[in-house]
């Protein structure tokens, strides 16, 4: 679970790191990804792993459109504008999803067996999704560190003006990275669909948006590898504290575990605002 | 009035100020001269309370203000005009300057109406009165520098710290500002400390005393003509030619 969340958080962190935009529509993008997996599976019996491809393409397209029509026009304005635009986009996507797919929960079971690790049964679909997200993140980092494009992105994150002076087409890069960030969110959503026990509905993204913030803050805003490691950490922290709370007989262990996650954000923001893995 | 005693300030391993001491008397005008990186701005930040020094003391009118936050120093009468103007872009000139009046040495003694009156008077003084209801964000850079000056003056300071107020200005404007600062300093008995990197002519015209900083230490102090003639100045600005 943590690995899958980490994939989405890398997308969120990429957008913040490159464009300095906090994308509040992140959760809505995850939701879209979940629906893509769901529909392709229910209608065509498509393997959820393959639905990553359409998620990737749809993500790029939506990202490009959103960047061109909205983000590029306001990203240099006050912070408030991009935040509110993100919310507007979130509402738009959610309401569109509601109209098209109805507000009810839809679920599906993708059972490909169970593996036992140390006596604990893990559904194979979850293990597979974790491995797939790890693979995607690995590909992303290889691109980031081994290609010219990746070098340009890293330059841009350090110093946009300097990057522009070096002949990097900043606008094109912004558009590309925004789209890629959205793509990562959709792909992450596609995989989260496998973990979604109570099914998906148009508003399912909310809780993931907030968790994504925990992750991104934990890893350091704009730090890409931090985001991925942060995702795994948050997954572990929530599972572990749920276990501990259950052990002590707290009425709602799962919910209190989320409280711990948010408490963590506050503590980290105050003590180490650059995150656990962010440099100064 | 202001006394800086044996101040040392480090950033990590770098010593930005090394055992620097200086005094400024009421109504006096001094210039702190030094090349880029000599510690001038750090010295101002210490006097101003942006950060505390590791060692040494800052004393203002007999009180130790070393650890006092910068806003309280403003109430005591220390004002600062930044080198790169720090305008409040979405409010009018008049409001910007009124903020200075409200929170300067008159803090708690005047209300918004009096502050606006002071703002009008200060804007007249620097020649920006006609633009008083424009938004600050619309001004050009030389005007912003004047506004910065008006904001600091509205604080009715006893000591005014000017970061390079004449740097990057055309010579005609330099003369105008220098004579303006002199006039106000004389009329209102305001002590002025200014940072100077290059424009030496302005220094001579303006300062009664010059302090030279080099690599974080005070190396020279004296009347402007004497200091400028000192061979050490050439060494600081041009490097040790003879050691090549």
């Amino acid at each position: 679970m943590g690995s899958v969340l980490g994939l989405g958080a890398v997308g969120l962190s990429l957008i913040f790191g490159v464009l300095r935009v906090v994308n509040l529509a992140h959760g809505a993008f995850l939701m879209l990804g979940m629906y893509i997996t769901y529909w392709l599976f229910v209608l065509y019996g498509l393997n959820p792993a393959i639905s990553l491809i359409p998620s990737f393409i749809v993500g790029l397209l939506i990202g490009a459109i959103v960047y061109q029509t909205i983000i590029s026009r306001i990203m240099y304005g006050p912070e408030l504008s991009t935040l509110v635009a993100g919310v507007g986009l979130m509402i738009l996507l959610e309401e569109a999803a509601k109209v098209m797919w109805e507000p009810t929960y839809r679920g599906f079971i993708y059972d490909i067996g169970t593996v036992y690790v140390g006596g604990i049964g893990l559904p194979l679909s979850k293990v597979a999704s974790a491995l797939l997200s790890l693979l995607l993140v690995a590909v992303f980092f290889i691109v980031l560190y081994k290609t010219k494009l990746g070098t340009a992105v890293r330059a841009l994150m350090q110093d946009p003006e300097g990057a522009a002076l070096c002949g990097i087409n900043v606008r094109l890069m912004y558009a590309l990275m925004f789209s890629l960030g959205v793509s990562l969110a959709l792909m992450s959503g596609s995989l989260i669909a496998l973990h979604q026990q109570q099914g998906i509905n148009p508003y399912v993204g909310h809780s993931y948006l907030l968790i994504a913030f925990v992750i991104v803050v934990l890893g350091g805003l704009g730090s890409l590898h931090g985001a991925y490691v942060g995702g795994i950490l948050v997954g572990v922290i929530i599972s572990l504290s749920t276990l501990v709370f259950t052990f002590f007989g707290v009425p709602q262990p799962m919910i209190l575990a989320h409280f711990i996650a948010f408490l963590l954000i506050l503590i980290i923001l105050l003590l180490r605002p650059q995150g656990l893995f962010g440099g100064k | 009035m202001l006394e800086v005693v044996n101040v040392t300030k480090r950033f990590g391993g770098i010593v930005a100020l090394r055992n620097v001491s200086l005094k400024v008397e009421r109504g006096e005008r001094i210039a702190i001269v030094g090349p880029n990186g000599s510690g001038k701005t750090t010295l101002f930040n210490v006097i101003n309370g942006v950060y505390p020094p590791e060692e040494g003391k800052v004393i203002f009118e007999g009180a130790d203000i070393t650890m006092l936050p910068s806003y309280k120093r403003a109430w005591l009468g220390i004002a600062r005009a930044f080198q790169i103007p720090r305008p409040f872009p979405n409010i009018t000139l008049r409001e910007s300057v009124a903020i200075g009046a409200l929170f300067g040495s008159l803090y708690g003694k005047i209300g918004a109406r009096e502050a606006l009156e002071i703002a009008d008077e200060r804007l007249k003084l620097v020649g920006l009165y006609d633009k008083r209801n424009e938004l600050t964000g619309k001004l050009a850079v030389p005007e912003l520098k004047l506004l910065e000056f008006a904001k600091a003056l509205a604080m009715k300071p006893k000591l005014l710290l000017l970061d390079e107020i004449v740097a990057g200005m055309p010579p005609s404007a330099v003369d105008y500002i220098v004579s303006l600062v002199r006039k106000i300093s004389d009329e209102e008995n305001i002590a002025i400390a200014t940072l100077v990197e290059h424009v030496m002519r302005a220094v001579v015209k303006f300062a009664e005393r010059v302090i030279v900083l080099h690599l974080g230490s005070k190396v020279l102090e004296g009347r402007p003509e004497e200091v400028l003639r000192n061979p050490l100045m050439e060494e600081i600005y041009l490097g040790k030619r003879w050691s090549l």
Partner: protein
Amino acid sequence: MMGYRAFLLTVFTLLILVALRFITEAEPIGFITPQFVTFVMFYVALGLAFNIFIGMTGYVDFGYVAFMALGSYAMASAINRASSLSLPGYGAIILGLVETIVLTFILALIVGGIALRLRGAYFAIATISVNEGLRFLVDGLDIWGGSAGIYVSGPLIRLVGHEAYSFIALIVSDLLLYATAFIALIITFVYLNSRIGYALKAIREDEDAAKVMGVNTTFYKVLAFSTSGILGGLIGASWALKLAAVYPPEAFNIFYTVEAIVIVMLGGAGTFLGPIVGGAVYGGLKYVLSGYIPGYQLLIFAPILIAIIVMVPQGVIGFLRERSERLREFIA
């Protein structure tokens, strides 16, 4: 006093709106009904209360609804306590208001004291975490009824009887809401015309420069944060009187915060006219749209919102103010 004519005009307009609420009690005029007026006033109050912090300081508080939630809970728990002890009903409401003020003030001091050391996106995320953290805390530790919530209408009816209940739920709650809106308006005006307003503007524009100019930034930020928070609590408390129950997902629904931000953005941050225009336009539009096309109002509303942000990012009043010197003097 700068902008006093605009202030008087605003007060006058709002008074007319309030008067319309009672005139239309018997018969609606067009789409104007008591519900419409209250709906609009809710958003006007929300905009004004929120604007005192977000508009004047430029900090984006994404946890604002926590204050409203706390107000709702304070009112609900006061009524429940009074109901179980059979104390007089109106006393419970007054007690609820007092508790709202005390609790929201404490929350504001704690959150403000800690989170206001952060800036920009960091502050926004910290406040989201406070809101979500509180929600999970109430839910997880079964405080105030936990996820089941806490009843309001039932205990209130037991306390005062059916007739008095409908009077409280309709009239008293409305009046409290209107009063909150007027208090928020007056505070905004007083702040704008005093040292406080200048300090907050300086903080919004350049916090470091403000500090050097003698502004005790921490003090003024916490002042604005708690003023805005207490007013938010009062809105929550008066609204709770209309509800059957207060429970976490609704009370802490981040959507109210979003609406408040939208209103302030729509009208223009930092002025008192902005949130009123924003609140009236937003509330009115939402009411009318939900009447004609129920279920689709958000779908239509979202693109309008985005278009406004893209085209007039400084808000309607901000846009006009930037262009006209006369308007600047008029509204201060």
